[in-house]
């Protein structure tokens, strides 16, 4: 018997390259992309300067007033006219524009980030669910949850009319009952009679407690709701409803919708974030839905379905990781858009409340003094917007190339 010594397991295959994850691969492609790196650096400069200024460079906007040095042109040296150096000049209240631009970045970037967060979380989840249930049938409990919510929502109308909030619970129960009926009884036309009748009785009888007319209206409404709930709503209809709602939001002119939301909430930076976030929801919902639809046709999803994996596991192990790249790209570009929209709202006087520095609001403040020739008061805040947005756009472009090398070919 010969002794065999094995070194390195005995196999040395030079063709196998070191193991790299998908994300590491993408990162290497990103680093190799010059324009993307420029974008990344620009973005980092803005983020670092804004957070640095916010935490370490004290600025009290309310106390910043110096009428002695108003509308001074940019200077790099100390002159008689301006005892201090203002490399970006000063505005109509004598405030140093460089200081306000750097501090304004904190507000503008924050608006962008929160707004994208709002649109991404709401729109992403809606799109994920509608795409998923459009291609994969709902199971019993998912159907149960959907029908209960749907029943409660429809019942809320009847409950509102009769001022009886308990009707919400009644109709939620009716929705839930429909799922049980569908599972345990034969599927014949009788269900329309049963559920229509139950709805009629629920609305009508509780309406009678208020008055005959209320009973009449709620009864008819209940009948309609009952008929609607008599068949459990499938994933396709659910997705359809969600997407139609998104269509309605999309068919509003985006700025008008944002302005209307701010008019409703009142001006302020936080309100602007919400407005821009809500307006952006449909974009992410549509993107997530279409990405899910294409991924869920893939073999690995079918395989996981056929071995009986739970829906949650299918969604988060197989689908979500595979739709991340378009969503990351869209979010980066969305940040650029959100910064632009925030600046637009600020410009219209609906964003940050003065004297709080914010790029759009600074432009809106100063452009009325345009005829005085104070170009610096509008040039620098504007450049800050352009460069930060450009940075995010470059980075987004690079990310797309890095995450989806097939496009490049």
């Amino acid at each position, binding site marked *: 018997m010969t002794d065999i010594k094995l070194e390195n397991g005995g196999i040395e295959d030079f063709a196998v390259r070191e193991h790299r994850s998908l994300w590491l691969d993408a990162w290497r492609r990103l680093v190799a992309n010059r324009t993307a790196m420029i974008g990344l650096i620009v973005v980092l400069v803005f983020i670092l300067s804004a957070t640095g200024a916010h935490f370490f460079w004290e600025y009290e906007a309310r106390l910043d007033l110096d009428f002695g040095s108003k509308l001074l042109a940019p200077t790099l040296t100390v002159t008689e006219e301006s005892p201090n150096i203002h490399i970006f000049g000063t505005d109509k209240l004598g405030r140093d524009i460089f200081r306000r631009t750097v501090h304004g970045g904190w507000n503008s970037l924050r608006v962008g980030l929160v707004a994208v967060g709002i649109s991404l979380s709401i729109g992403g989840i809606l799109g994920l669910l509608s795409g998923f249930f459009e291609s994969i049938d709902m199971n019993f409990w998912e159907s149960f949850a959907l029908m209960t919510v749907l029943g409660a929502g429809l019942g809320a109308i009847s409950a*509102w*009319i*009769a*001022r009886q909030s308990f009707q919400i619970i009644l109709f939620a129960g009716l929705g839930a009952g429909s799922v049980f009926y569908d599972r345990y009884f034969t599927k014949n036309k009788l269900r329309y009679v049963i559920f229509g009748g139950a709805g009629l009785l629920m609305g009508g009888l509780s309406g009678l407690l*208020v*008055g*005959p*007319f*209320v009973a*009449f*209206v709620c009864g008819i409404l209940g009948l309609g709701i009952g008929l609607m709930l008599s068949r459990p709503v499938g994933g396709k209809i659910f997705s359809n409803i969600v997407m*139609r*709602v998104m*269509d*309605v*939001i999309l*068919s*509003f*002119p*985006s*700025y*008008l919708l944002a*302005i*209307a*939301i701010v*008019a*409703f909430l*009142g001006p302020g930076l936080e309100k602007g974030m919400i407005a821009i976030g809500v307006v952006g929801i449909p974009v992410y919902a549509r993107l997530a839905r279409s990405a899910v639809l294409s991924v869920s046709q893939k073999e690995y999803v079918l395989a996981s379905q056929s071995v009986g994996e739970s829906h949650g596991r299918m969604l988060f192990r197989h689908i979500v990781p595979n739709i991340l790249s378009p969503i990351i790209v869209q979010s980066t570009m969305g940040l*650029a858009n959100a910064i*632009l929209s925030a*600046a*637009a709202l600020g*410009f*219209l006087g609906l964003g940050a409340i003065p004297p709080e520095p914010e790029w*759009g609001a600074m*432009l809106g403040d100063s*452009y009325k003094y*345009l*005829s005085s*020739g104070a*170009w610096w008061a*509008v*040039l620098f805040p*504007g450049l800050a*917007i*352009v460069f930060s*947005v*450009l940075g995010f*756009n*470059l980075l987004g*472009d690079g990310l797309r190339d890095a995450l989806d090398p097939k496009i490049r*070919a």
Partner: protein
Amino acid sequence: MGRYIIRRLISVIPTLIGVTLVIFLFQRLIPGDPAVAMLGEHATEENVARIREQFGLNRPAFLDRDALAEGDLAGFFDSQYVRYFRRLAHLDLGDSIHRRIPVAETLKERFPATLELSLVSMSIALLIGIPAGIASASRRNTTLDGVTMVSSLVGVSMPIFWLGIMLIMLFSVFLQWLPSGARLSTGVEIQTITNLLLLDSLLTGNFEGFVDALKHIIMPAVALATIPAAIITRMTRSSMLDVLQEDYIRTASAKGLSERVVLFRHALKNAFLPVITIIGIQAGTLLAGAVLTETIFSWPGIGKWVYDAILGRDYPIVQGVTLLIALIFLLVNLAVDLSYAALDPRITYD
């Protein structure tokens, strides 16, 4: 085809109803009373009540459940929303609360201004975007391509209101070449036919008026055209790049066809579908983006008007304009879908 168009037109209706519902929901939610906004803080309660009565603002927004509880079925449905719908059926958009003029009348006057601005901007965007995209795709990875791509990225990143301000600064304040606002100089008159001033002045042979109108529209139109031009450039380029890799392009070149014929007859026609889609989306954005441009250039269109109306709680104006813009947006979408069939014989609708 005809049946498809009718079906699509019918499917517009539920979306429009959704839009009106959302408008009314907002109207109910937005704090502030239009009657108070109109009469001022110190108005007597009597006067406020009279205005509220006159414009139906004292009615509930959707349904009157109190009337129903008292047994008044007709009163139940007598809400602001139902009244609005009844008027809409007669194509009546209601009266402005502040100025007491029919909304439709002011709309007729102001909408052409926005339409003219959008049309000129779109033309500029197309004239720049499509040639730039084609040139950039056919000379891929050259300096020309690089310059085009960088400038289109800068264009996408440009806040149009800032660009507008910088244009005014340069051409109106420093060089004093172009006027900074309005559609016409005072003293210049154009006989109005369509209210599209450029068209009207040409139709009436008013050359002086045409030049004046052109001078006024050029800056706002360029500012508004920047983003669509940049987006169309990028879309045309990437779509052309896809098509140029196809076998039939190589075949066409191999046959000895000139580069121009290959580019325009073989490639562009096939690359145009995604471009059309983007153009459609941008057309909707143009109308909406007008809010900012019109504010800066004091352009008397619907953008500035509706902005003031939202802040002044003049609901009939907001309702009318939003509905109109949403309708145009949906119709443009339909036109885009139909143009697919016109451009690509493989696509049919039935």
